[in-house]
């Protein structure tokens, strides 16, 4: 049916208005994008100032003199403290307990063919080291801090390859007993996380359990496994388990909403909070205790041709130029480096400081 001139005018006006609105929206969006992209290599001074009053601390691995140690710093990178001071042992991959009182980590001990990767925990000031397991890696804490879950090494022979794991075990700090996860088929998992409700593990899988490569959620006391369909690796859960962050490719820190309450866990609303550009990579993203920030590692891509499998993102592999950074979890590319020496500063994790007066 032909439209009246009045209807045609109305339609034309609305169409023009919508077009204008869309054009403005596109321009505005691209403006934001350009602005964000421009900031990928420009640290935020405001953020660094903001972090000076943030109470929680950060622990990370670093190689300053040919030996790996764990360093503890304030959120703005001030007051670094060497927690380990062991010239013959390489301490790596620190994971603080939920209350911040302890830190579990892996230690590469021995040389050559005798080299092993073992798991320990200690007080957050570096005292009272206790071994958890031999030939084990990828530890994480239970939400109540009473246990440490970890993966056994797949082989006796040492490897830096992070996915060389087989079997998940849980160590009880009080009884010093260990039990295996009921799913005996857990294979090639790394970056374990235990959900705050205690019901799930979230981890990266590479070439195992029927997966090519991806981030999965699996039951803490069962055998159900779900693909979260997130492209990338090394996930980390927020304090409430309702958000996840991960390495979204080699150059981005992704954030998504996470639903672990439904029968089939899923991640939605995927976006990036940090974007770097080749050759500067982004790895090891970890939520701050209140979810306000993420800490992560930033550094140049490996360019050397080597067969040692020594990729800078692997624990214990030298990463010249890599530094620990903090980014605002609510914005894109609002970030600041908290280490600047580039001495393989990576695998950062937040240490909860409950007593704010003791924070500084």
């Amino acid at each position: 049916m032909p439209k009246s001139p009045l209807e045609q005018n109305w339609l034309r006006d609305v169409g023009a208005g919508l077009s204008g609105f869309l054009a403005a929206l596109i321009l505005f969006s691209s403006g934001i994008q350009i602005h964000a992209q421009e900031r990928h290599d420009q640290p935020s001074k405001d953020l660094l100032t903001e972090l000076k009053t943030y109470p929680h601390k950060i622990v990370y691995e670093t190689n300053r003199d040919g030996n790996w140690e764990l360093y503890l710093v304030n959120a703005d990178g001030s007051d670094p403290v060497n927690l380990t001071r062991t010239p013959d042992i390489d301490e790596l991959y620190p994971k603080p307990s939920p209350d911040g009182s302890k830190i579990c980590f892996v230690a590469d001990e021995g040389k050559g063919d005798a080299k092993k990767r073992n798991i320990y925990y200690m007080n957050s000031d570096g005292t009272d080291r206790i071994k958890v397991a031999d030939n084990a890696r990828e530890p994480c804490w239970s939400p109540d801090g009473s246990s440490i879950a970890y993966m056994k090494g797949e082989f006796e022979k040492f490897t830096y390859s992070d996915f060389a794991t087989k079997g998940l075990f849980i160590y009880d700090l009080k009884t010093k007993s260990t039990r295996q996860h009921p799913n005996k088929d857990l294979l090639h998992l790394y970056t374990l996380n235990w959900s705050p409700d205690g019901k799930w593990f979230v981890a990266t899988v590479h070439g195992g359990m029927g997966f090519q490569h991806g981030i999965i959620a699996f039951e803490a006391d069962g055998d159900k496994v779900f693909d979260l369909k997130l492209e990338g690796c090394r996930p980390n859960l927020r304090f409430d388990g309702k958000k996840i962050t991960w390495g979204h490719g080699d150059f981005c820190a992704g954030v998504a909403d996470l639903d672990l309450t439904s029968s089939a866990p899923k991640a939605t609303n995927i976006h990036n909070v940090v974007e770097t550009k080749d050759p500067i990579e982004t790895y090891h993203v970890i939520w701050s205790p209140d979810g306000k920030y993420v800490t992560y590692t930033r550094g140049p891509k490996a360019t050397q041709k080597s067969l040692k499998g020594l990729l800078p993102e692997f624990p214990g592999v030298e990463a010249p130029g890599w530094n620990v950074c903090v980014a605002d979890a609510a914005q894109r590319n609002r970030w600041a480096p908290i280490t600047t020496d580039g001495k393989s500063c990576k695998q950062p994790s937040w240490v909860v400081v409950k007593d704010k007066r003791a924070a500084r």
Partner: protein
Amino acid sequence: MKPQGPVAFRQGKELAERQKGAEVKHFPVCYPPLRQPNELAEGSVFLKKSRKVCPWGASFGGRGAIYQFLVEIAPCGLMLAIFLSFVGCQKNNHAGSSARLPPTITTKGGLEMVLVPTGSFQMGSPGGKEDERSVHTVTVDSFLMDKYEVTQAEFDRLQLPNPSHFKGPTLPVEQVTWVQAAVYCNARSKAEGLTPCYNEDTAACDFQADGYRLPTEAEWEYACRAGTDSDFGFGSDVRKLGDYGWLADNSSKKTHPVGEKRPNAWGLFDMHGNVAEWCNDVYDKDYYRASPAENPHGPADGKEYVLRGGSWKSPAEALRSSSRLAESPGFSDACLARDAIGFRCVRKVPISQ
């Protein structure tokens, strides 16, 4: 060692002769090539009908058969026998009971390798993609090549993490980077007391080392062709491709145990399909225009490395003997998850032994 005699493999004619069936009394090993042309003698005690062709492909180049026997074959056979006994290998004829197959050996690690003869071939394809069209003659020295793609059982045996998506001990290892493949080569070499070919710090390949390495692109194509100049190692009839390899049309979207399909004329399995195979060479689409005529080792540097043979998820086109693909080698990426990429190894024939 570079061939010094006229041992070029003239594909069409020799293939036709080979198919007629040259009878032999012993395994002729066309290695090493001629060294003293003035020792030429007439007559034949070795090949009936004085055929100037090695039964499995390489030409004798018009010299007398006695000369061929004395100068080429007897020393080669002797060296091979010494080599086999010295390294504890056993000549394994079961897969090549026909005299037309090159000999195979079983390595200390228990893997079968085919002794690929010295020879020449036309590398590339005039009707192929742009990077294949500069067809050129390439001569390749004799080498040993894995009869099968490297399996996941091998990674377990050497205590290397198996990155494969589809799991199974007899399945080819996949999701493997060039770096992981080279690491395997070195681990396998060390396990057998051989000198690793790859420098761990630089990934440079020492072609003189006696250990395992990835085949050069020329070696791979030469071995895949096995004396043919057709699209595939068995001819150009694409309808037969399913008899020789796993590809998108018949794979049911997964890899399959190695060795289930028919081998090529030299007894090599799965050269077409199953998993695409890493070569040692850096990829350069223009490399054929300036490639050395003898034992080319690929460009000095580049971002991607060569893959050959196509895979279980490839169309027939990608499985052609001359088809070239390229992929990031994994020097800076541990999460490469291409479940269509695997490899097989080659090894220098140990002349000194």
